């Protein structure tokens, strides 16, 4: 299974659906704070905030969307070349007693989310933490699941999932390649 799995339109539809699900699950958007995980979780969180605001006019997207860098919380730092540290932006509304929705592009082993949960713990104490992922490709190594998923994508470990977003890559697409294809 190789090639483009989600088109720009697919991504658009998935984010719109997730926006509705977030509102529905939380009975509104009053306490919602969206934290994108860099790099590509950040623009996804921004887009999701805009969708939510278009459905719930009272939702102040600018004050409710932020970013959370998890580099310093990773458990595999010593196995990788040194990573540059991304930025953490806590939204103006803060996260204490809010419902934090973590936003990432691909949910895989779950280790990134574990690190994000640790990072959130150091920033404050939300009422609840939920997880939205554009793609869930399986192969979890920790007891973590997503609350909102754009597309479930069964993959083999040998495959590689690349999410492209226009803000960073100039186009919207989700692609699967065999490792070594490139």
């Amino acid at each position, binding site marked *: 299974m190789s090639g483009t799995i989600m088109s720009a339109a697919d991504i658009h539809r998935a984010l719109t659906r997730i926006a509705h699900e977030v509102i529905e699950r939380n009975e509104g958007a009053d306490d919602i704070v969206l934290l994108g995980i860099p790099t590509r979780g950040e623009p996804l969180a921004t887009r999701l905030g805009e969708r939510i605001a278009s459905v719930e006019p009272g939702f102040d997207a600018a004050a409710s969307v932020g970013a959370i*860098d998890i580099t*310093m*919380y990773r458990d595999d*730092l*010593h*196995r*990788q*070349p*040194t*990573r*540059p*540290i*991304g*930025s*953490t932006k806590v939204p103006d509304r803060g996260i204490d007693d809010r419902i934090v929705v973590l936003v990432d592009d691909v949910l895989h082993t779950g280790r990134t989310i574990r690190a994000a949960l*640790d990072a959130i*713990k*150091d*920033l*404050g104490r939300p009422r609840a933490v939920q997880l939205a992922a554009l793609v869930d490709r399986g192969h979890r190594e920790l007891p973590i699941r997503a609350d909102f998923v754009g597309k479930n994508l069964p993959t083999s470990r040998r495959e590689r999932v690349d999410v492209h977003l226009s803000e960073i890559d100039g186009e919207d697409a989700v692609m699967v390649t065999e490792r070594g294809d490139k």
Partner: protein
Amino acid sequence: MKHLLGTDGMSREDAVLLLDTAAQMAATQEREVRKLPTLRGKTVVNLFFEDSTRTRISFEAAAKRLSADVINFSAKGSSVSKGESLKDTALTLQAMGADAVVIRHSASGAAYQLAHSGWLRGSVLNAGDGTHQHPTQALLDAFTARRRLVDDPEGKGLDGLTLAIVGDVLHSRVVRSNVSLWTTLGAKVVLVAPPTLLPVGVSTWPVEVVHRLDHAIDRFDLDAVMMLRVQRERMTGGGDAFFPSPEEYTRLYGLDRSRMDRLPSHAIVMHPGPMNRGLEIAAEAADSDRSVIVEQVANGVAVRMAALYLLLAGEEAA
């Protein structure tokens, strides 16, 4: 990066990475919980052959906020007089499994030797060696200036800025580190000192040299002025003195209100500390709005966190 020994030879890319990483570290220090788990299980040894409580606690705070274990090893008194102690100490630290050694030593080159001798495998951070280099001090100076003087600083250097460093250039490791770093980052550096306090080889440095502070203020559009600590003992002592008297030094090189008022309005005043108020810097300058001296101290922790992170967090060098 395996070691941080000096700013000479440091690429612009690495220098900017250090400053950007320090910015992220500084941001974490404004949170409720300032401790990060990043270096859990790593051991950082502060090996100080020279007293410097300020530098040591800055490195200690940085390591602890990244959750590293910190061992303070004060080896004062066993340094140059009995040379083998550096080697023996290094072998001891190696046996104890130090992942990084922060070394402060009165002998120029001690950090370089520790890193290249094969005595130990960990990373070496130079916290000041003799009159050679003090890279984290220069990085925190550059970081402080970039924050104050450069809009939207992430990813940027110090291009187009002019820094004056005033005082004892001859004996200063801070100057050597700052000259390399600021020029690498695109700034112009003006050294202001009497010829007795300049090294003979200074003519080959990429700097402007001026012998009077007033001339520096008149001739250059200074964005930052860094006042160096004057060691009183270097001023006296008959034929050994580098300068006739403290009073004459203050007259020619002290930063007082009138000199400060002649600086461009945005210019900042820096000092690596500890200050001699009334000698190289008047209280009215040290405590003015232009002074970033307290910020320098706070930024020191962030810069040292960044250095420790970049040296220790990545995969082990093969």
